[in-house]
């Protein structure tokens, strides 16, 4: 297990170097896909390397000249990385500009300051009623496919797209298995290791990642975990688009709580739902996008409640509480949060919200909140 975890740590501790190396090793072009819903399979089928754009590892500097300080962490960090040339290894970038307003900033900024060889905007609509939504979505995905064909000069056949979907589906199944084992053997991986495992999937070629996961799963299946006494289970929820600071995950576990499952983007949300391979592959990708669960506040779903979903996940895991992780200046989560909180109160579910920023963050303040939460739910 150490070998696999060490590889995953290597990939995620310096994703810039890793992806640059991957590009050199494979001779393929790299396309940065801004989280959360760019269908990477189409990029993969174009024989390009899709990587999910990440929140960087340095404080924002030049980026301040391009985006206001009241944009979220990944927005500021990505723009900073881009204008400083740290992402020059990306040959192209794709943005789903209707996900939130901040993504709408990117096309002009990137076009003027970075000028990648390929840039594409997707409009992927919210999941509203009516056939027009599905038609527009299909049209958007076809347009994405055509633009990649124009970029590479090669057609993307249905067969190659199906093959890519198959590889991605396998990755989803394998990640689901990792989560399943974690639920069976709490503590077998630290929460940060699980997040790194999912994150590495966003950075590596999926074929390579699948092999890594198979080895990890084999190791996990063979390993027994000694009980470390009664640790209270909690479910982290939220943190859309970006990784959480690993220190916070460590803090949760060091305070006597244990994470057996999650509802995080760099977590179970990334690999939820497989694309159906029967029929048209573009339609399969559209149907996957149009799936309402796990509920995402960027997708305009309101006939089910995010709070109900989170509570179900908590109860399925026999967990005792929910830790909401809200990215500062994330409007979709921020607008939803009061209703999420009300649901928790209504159902008598212990819940605490912590805010995360890209840079300035008082870990001590967060620790105090988490400590008192742990005491409330009986973790200490």
């Amino acid at each position, binding site marked *: 297990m150490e070998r696999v975890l060490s590889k995953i740590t290597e990939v995620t501790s310096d994703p810039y170097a890793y992806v640059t190396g991957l590009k050199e090793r494979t001779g393929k072009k790299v396309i940065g896909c801004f989280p959360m819903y760019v269908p990477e399979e189409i990029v993969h089928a174009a024989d390009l390397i899709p990587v999910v754009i990440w929140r960087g590892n340095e404080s924002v500097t030049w980026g301040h*000249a*391009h*985006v*206001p300080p*009241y*944009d979220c962490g990944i927005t500021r960090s990505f723009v900073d990385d881009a204008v400083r040339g740290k992402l020059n290894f990306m040959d192209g970038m794709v943005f789903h*500009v*209707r*996900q*939130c*307003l*901040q993504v*709408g*900033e990117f*096309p*002009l*900024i990137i076009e*003027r300051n970075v000028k990648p060889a390929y840039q594409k*905007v997707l*409009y992927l*609509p*919210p999941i*509203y*009623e*009516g*056939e*027009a*939504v599905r*038609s*527009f979505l299909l*049209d958007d995905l076809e*347009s994405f496919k055509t633009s990649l064909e124009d970029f590479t000069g090669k057609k993307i056949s249905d067969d190659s797209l199906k093959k890519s979907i198959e590889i991605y589906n396998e990755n989803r199944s394998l990640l689901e298995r990792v989560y399943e084992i974690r639920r069976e053997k709490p503590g077998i991986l630290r929460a940060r290791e699980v997040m790194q495992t999912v994150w590495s999937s966003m950075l590596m070629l999926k074929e390579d990642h699948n092999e890594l996961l198979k080895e990890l799963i084999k190791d996990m299946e063979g390993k027994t975990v000694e009980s470390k006494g009664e640790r209270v289970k909690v479910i982290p929820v939220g943190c859309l688009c970006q990784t959480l600071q690993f220190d916070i995950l460590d803090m949760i576990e060091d305070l006597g709580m244990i994470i057996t499952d999650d509802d995080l983007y760099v977590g179970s949300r990334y690999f939820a739902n497989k694309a159906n391979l029967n029929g048209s592959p573009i339609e399969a990708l559209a149907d996957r996008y149009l799936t309402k669960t796990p509920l995402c*506040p*960027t997708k*305009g779903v*309101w006939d089910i*409640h995010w709070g109900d979903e989170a509570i179900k996940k908590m109860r399925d895991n026999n967990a005792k509480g929910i830790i909401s992780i809200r990215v*500062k*200046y994330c*409007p*979709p989560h*921020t*607008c*939803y*949060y*009061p*209703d999420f*909180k*009300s649901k928790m109160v209504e159902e008598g579910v212990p819940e605490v919200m912590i805010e995360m920023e890209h840079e300035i963050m008082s870990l001590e303040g967060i620790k105090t909140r988490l400590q008192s939460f742990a005491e409330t739910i009986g973790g200490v």
Partner: protein
Amino acid sequence: MDVKYKVNRLQTTNEIRPLVDKHWADLRTAKERGELVAWASGPTFIFAYAMGMKCHFMAGYSAYCGGIGAGEEVLKVAEMAGDLPETCSYHRLHMGMGEAVARGIPINPQAILPMPDLMVAGRLCPEMSHYAEGLHRRFGVRVLPIDLPAVANIEDMPRVREFVYRQFKEVVIPTIEEVCGKPFDYDRMSEILSVLKKVATLRNQCWEFFKDKPSRWTLWDYGVSIAPVFYLMGNPAGITYYEKLLKELQERREKGIPAIAPDGEKYRLYWDGWLPWAFLGKFMRKFTPHGAVVLCGRYPWEFFPHPELIDPEHPVESWADLYYGMESHLVYTFSPKGTIDLIGKLIDDYSLDGLIMFSSKTCRVMNLAQPEVIDVLDKKYGIPGVIIEGDMIDSAMISDAQIETRLQALYEMIDSRRR
């Protein structure tokens, strides 16, 4: 000797308040008369109007709330109900008003609206969906959502226009027919557009007086006159209002009366983003002593700058075209790139000296890529610009000192480029 500048107030603008008061009062009392009530965001209220429903408009209500000084107390209720201060202040206003009604918390009665029979939620910006979702979750409001994408590349405009048109025809109209229990009234929609065409044509004639040097009126005057070209759409009183306004501006030109005394403006400025509805007077007091007049802006120029393209004979198609036509689209629906084209044209047409980019801390719909926009325009036209941060409604987001410093810097940049 320093010149003492003073605003020459227009008389006609005094007549707008009774018109908007009546609109909101009619809406408040609609249920008592057994009328159906709709709420709307984005350009969807016209469908409710066509069916005789009384209808609110998200930004219009928010502007009204801010304008009558009710913003702060309604925002406080929202905060008490759990809404976080960084949330869009329009969103918070609606949540706060709903919570005040539901919990019986006293607020300014003019800020209270009846809960709607239908909310037609046009998702021009994602927050417009979030607020509708929130109202549905908290108060069980029935929502009819449609997506109204902002287009990043002009070549995408035709397919987005088709998407929006289909939603109007396949979702909005059938649902409103079901709620109202009668067929959609295309004739009434045509009438509304006919009135709009007249009002917008008169309004465009008034815009010509911004080109005068000195200007005969200010963007703030136009800001308070916006309702007839938007949520008072279809009301013939709008025609009368703009006829009077036009007459007054003509008289000013004849008599040589400028927007600010004694001799008109020293700086001719552009305003980007929302108008700060709750703080119009406050901002005016920051401009006028310096001889600065704000003449044009993106948001106020969104409202049908090409009335000649309004086609009342084909109301639904025309409505889609007014937002997504290649020639007639809104600036917002082609944002942020379209913004550059619009401002460039305004700089030329209105002889502007500088740009003020108002960046709302809680609503990014107009903020997109503002530093890039300033940079492009400065390089192309040699016009300096500054960003000032604030909010349309929430005074906690306004820092007077920061704003004054940046405005001062703008005036100095303009002076230095004139030397």
